[in-house]
């Protein structure tokens, strides 16, 4: 009698467990996507981001004109069927240049984010695993880098490394004759990557260090340690998957801020040089004439504003989606 009741309760327990595991097949990622798509702002952000990526990838094929092609009969014209967003002060099609600008901005943002994530993860791991001395030293370095406004430091670096990079490329061209090094336009981008990556990595380093320190206290890590799992395996199997959420959110935000920094540098004449199209240098070269040719400033400015807004909304949505516990209570 008592035995049968036990089996029954075991049975029901098993059923319950089975039901629970059926629930759990909705994985974290599926859940996150669901939460993301339920948030209207982040859907708008996602759409804007997709538009940007399409523009950056296929811009040259979509663009009706090249970014340097001048239509000297139609200089500084208002938007028309021929030139959808008008032409600039030397007759270049604004729509095409905005598309090329999207390519510049995305390229810089992707590379900068990539480089700074790598540096940040390495430094963060050193701080997290290297003991108190390493933590202290990396912490001081991060403080130092962060005590100068990011834009100023990036500009200073870009200004300083520009000439060495160009001479370096010229030397390589002289000795190897490799055609890639004959063209110096992409060197501007390289200089911008360097400056931006140098000011963006501390954010990641801090994040990774914080994640290592806070996750290390979790019981499942302790449990893994106590059964003898190696540090490396713990890092890869337990730390990494749990830290990936915050990292993705930070990636999104720093993607948009890298774009803004690139435009800022180009606006100051340090980054991407004309005739290469960057939203920053497009704004800079037309800001003096905003009162009588407003569209020349407004088009790149609005594009930059909409794109950064969109990416930030996406980042905010991702933050809520990947951090179900925070539930918007920040």
């Amino acid at each position, binding site marked *: 009698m008592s035995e049968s009741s036990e089996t029954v309760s075991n049975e029901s327990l098993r059923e319950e467990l089975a039901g629970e595991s059926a629930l759990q097949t909705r994985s974290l990622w599926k859940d996150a996507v669901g939460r993301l798509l339920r948030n209207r702002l982040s859907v708008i952000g996602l759409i804007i981001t997709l538009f940007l990526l399409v523009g950056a990838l296929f811009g040259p094929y979509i663009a009706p004109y090249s970014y340097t092609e001048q239509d000297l009969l139609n200089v500084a014209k208002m938007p028309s069927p021929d030139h959808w967003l008008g032409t600039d002060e030397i007759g270049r099609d604004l729509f095409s240049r905005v598309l090329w600008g999207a390519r510049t901005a995305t390229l810089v943002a992707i590379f900068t984010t990539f480089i700074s994530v790598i540096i940040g993860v390495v430094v963060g791991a050193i701080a997290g695993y290297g003991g108190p001395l390493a933590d202290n030293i990396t912490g001081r370095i991060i403080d130092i880098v962060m005590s100068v406004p990011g834009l*100023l430091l990036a500009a*200073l670096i870009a200004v300083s490394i520009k000439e060495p990079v160009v001479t370096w490329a010229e030397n390589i061209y002289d000795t190897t004759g490799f055609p890639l090094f004959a063209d110096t336009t992409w060197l501007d981008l390289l200089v911008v990557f360097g400056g931006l990556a140098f000011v963006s990595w501390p954010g990641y380093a801090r994040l990774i260090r914080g994640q290592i320190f806070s996750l290390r206290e979790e019981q499942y890590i302790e449990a893994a340690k106590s059964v003898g799992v190696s540090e490396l395996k713990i890092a890869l199997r337990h730390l990494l998957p749990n830290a990936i959420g915050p990292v993705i959110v930070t990636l999104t935000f720093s993607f948009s801020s890298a774009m803004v920094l690139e435009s800022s540098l180009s606006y*100051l004449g340090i980054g991407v040089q004309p005739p290469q199209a960057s939203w920053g240098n497009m704004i800079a070269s037309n800001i003096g004439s905003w*009162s009588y040719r407003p569209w020349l*400033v407004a088009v790149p400015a609005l594009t930059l504003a909409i794109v950064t807004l969109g990416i930030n909304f996406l980042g905010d949505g991702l933050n809520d989606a990947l951090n179900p516990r925070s539930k918007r209570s920040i």
Partner: protein
Amino acid sequence: MFVYTIKRLAVAIPTFIAVLLITFTLTVLSPFDPVAMMMTQFEGTLDTLAREEVIERIRDQYGLNDSYWVQFSRWIGRLVQGDLGISINGQRDVLRMIVKTFPISFQLGLAGAVVTTILGIPLGCIAALRQNTWLDYTIVGGTLGFRTVPVFVLAPLLLVLFVLVLDIMRVPRGWDGLFQSKVILPVFILALGPLPVVVRQTRAAVLEVFSMDYVRTAKMKGLEMWRIILRHILRNALIPVVTTLGFIAEGLIVGSIFLDSIFAIPGFGGVAEAGFRGFDYPVIMGVTMVSAIMIILTNLIVDLVYPFLDPRIKIE
């Protein structure tokens, strides 16, 4: 308190020295030749031989032929005496340029900080009190938008909107003191940059205080809502907002770099922008150092003031 102050200083000073070292190293490592750039204005007036000699003389005059450590120690020595060097374009004393323009930017920045606080604290409060409603989302989302939309985008767009489309103001240009109507738009644009940080910090702090026992007690006593907010919530919630001062300072400095030339304000940011555009190293170095000093000082002041505002923070 004394020991605490010394400790904070012991952190701030090496940070500043490291900033000096980075700044100097970057400018020296670059083989970019400011003298060659200067010579372009004499193009065609000097024959080749005289030209070489003039370049060499100028390089000696600026000490550009010495070794790294000689240049660095000489530079530090001059810094201590308040000599930031002479600008390459225009041959002006860099310290004088900064001292002359800094008060204007400081007034603008102060006004911007005040506007940010006046706007940010009530907005953060409202967002917290209406948590998870459309109002909360609008405030947080709306201000978030301005976090990365830079000044050189916002300024022309607002100019087009206010001057051309709405036609409610004349083009604000120049500087005639802080209490002029033409200051409104620049200050407002400056204030928008750091606004989301203040809003978020206030919102989070109010949310935290809101669940405290003493707030519940005040509610149960039947105190009116506005009195609870003013007397109990805000007083405690505003303490963490002080920590955003460093962010505000950085936002204001970076903002003024773009703002000054757009609105023709003779400020610190304008000096910085001209320095970058002209590859004017002495100016760039001076501007970077002054900005770093401002941010390090602001953070130091926050650190020193914080224990007074929140006695729970122990002074070690």
